């Protein structure tokens, strides 16, 4: 167990600017402590998150991904969060088939006021992944320059 104890998950979070990102701010302001394993990327809407971003994050070394969007009915772009939901459900099936534990990729609806939910979800995900261990995707030798496309996918997500 000592190895597992030493493992600190790396989690990439894609948070919607209008709700979850604000909630995460609130958590900070309210001094609600949560696990420090999450790196947050702000997006304008969960509907903007392409499954390519999620897989690129995993490929680049993340052990888990958290997606936060507005509650159903609250999306500023009307249906963005439903789009995300549909992609997410299909993506989970794909991940299972590809041998990635689906608990590593989590979608939550978190409103701007729900700082406590950010705290709870981040903690839970961190603990789950701590238990699951590192993702450690099998590597294939790649020529120089391969992987550039994945970086740019992340850069795109950041933009």
């Amino acid at each position, binding site marked *: 167990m000592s190895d597992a104890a030493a493992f600190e998950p790396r989690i990439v979070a894609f948070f919607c600017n209008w709700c979850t990102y604000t909630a995460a701010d609130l958590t900070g302001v309210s001094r609600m402590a949560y696990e420090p394993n999450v790196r947050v990327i702000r997006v304008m809407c969960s509907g903007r998150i392409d499954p*390519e971003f999620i897989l690129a994050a995993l490929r680049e070394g993340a052990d888990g991904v958290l997606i936060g969007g507005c509650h159903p009915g609250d999306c500023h772009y009307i249906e963005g969060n439903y789009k995300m939901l549909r992609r997410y459900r299909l993506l989970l099936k794909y991940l299972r088939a590809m041998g990635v534990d689906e608990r590593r990729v989590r979608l939550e609806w978190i409103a701007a006021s729900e700082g406590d939910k950010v705290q709870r979800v981040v903690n839970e995900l961190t603990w789950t992944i701590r238990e699951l261990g590192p993702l450690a995707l099998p590597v294939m030798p790649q020529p120089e320059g391969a992987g550039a496309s994945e970086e740019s996918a992340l850069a795109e997500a950041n933009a």
Partner: protein
Amino acid sequence: MSKPKAGFNWFASCGGCEEAVVDLHEAILDVVAAVDIVFWPCAMDFKKDDVRAMRDGEMDVCFINGAIRTSEEEEIAHLLRRKTKIVIAFGSCSHMGGIPGLGNLFTRDEILEHDFTQSFSVVNPEKTYPQEVTKVPEGEVELPRFLDYVRSLNQVIDVDYYLPGCPPPVALLRNAVQAVLSGELPPRGTVLAPDKALCQECPRLDSKPDDLAITEFKRPQEIIIDEEKCLLAQGLLCLGPATRSGCGAPCVNGNMPCTGCLGPTSRVKDYGLSTMTVFASLFESKDEKEIDELVDKIVDPVGSFNRYSLPSTFLHRKANV
């Protein structure tokens, strides 16, 4: 001016890409007349040393089909790269890993075990496996080792151009040869096929609703397929909206859905993921249960969305192998 020097080579492949060259029919004689074929393993005796002896960049163009499965193939790919000015990955196997790339869902050992001990008709109580070196009474016999994974050509060497398709459509092949001969080549890295979705050139495009909403998937054996109507509108998983055009939609003309052998258009990094995104956004439901029922109908997402492209996805291989 001397004729351009051309080469052909194949790695883990089915031979269909060669047949596609033969399907140029009479036109193949023009090709043979226009280039100087300096290297074609099935046509000439050819040894690694002969290639080594070439000057770097001596070959003007080399068409390479097949995925990379063995270390020997990898080595030769590097060698050919050094000796060739323009390397063209020819066919899905070389372009994205192809159908042999589905082997990345299993380990090498799983494949060996299945073939040599678990298959229904095999009788092998001693559990004999093929060996890289076998001592036989008369001496030693060797077999090459195949690697744990399958890779596309650009995962092994730099590739200049891609001719997509399983096998590449003859019209695209003809265009590519002309482009090479005239020297009017697009920027390096280009896939030599139109950069728009297959639906745009599909004869059934008119019957594809603009606001298509998917409420149900059908498997081809479950329905009598209408010969005129857009297949996606009939509930079939037709990958036309996410696949590059250039083939003329022969599969649709055969009254079956496109399975995506030409791969994605230029802005897409991971064909399977982008295809899933396209489809998911057509789902009508907002209800998680209903969405899951729809998803459940896609019994094999990897084989449906990455049939020709698994090694070139972000994951490359099944994660827990």
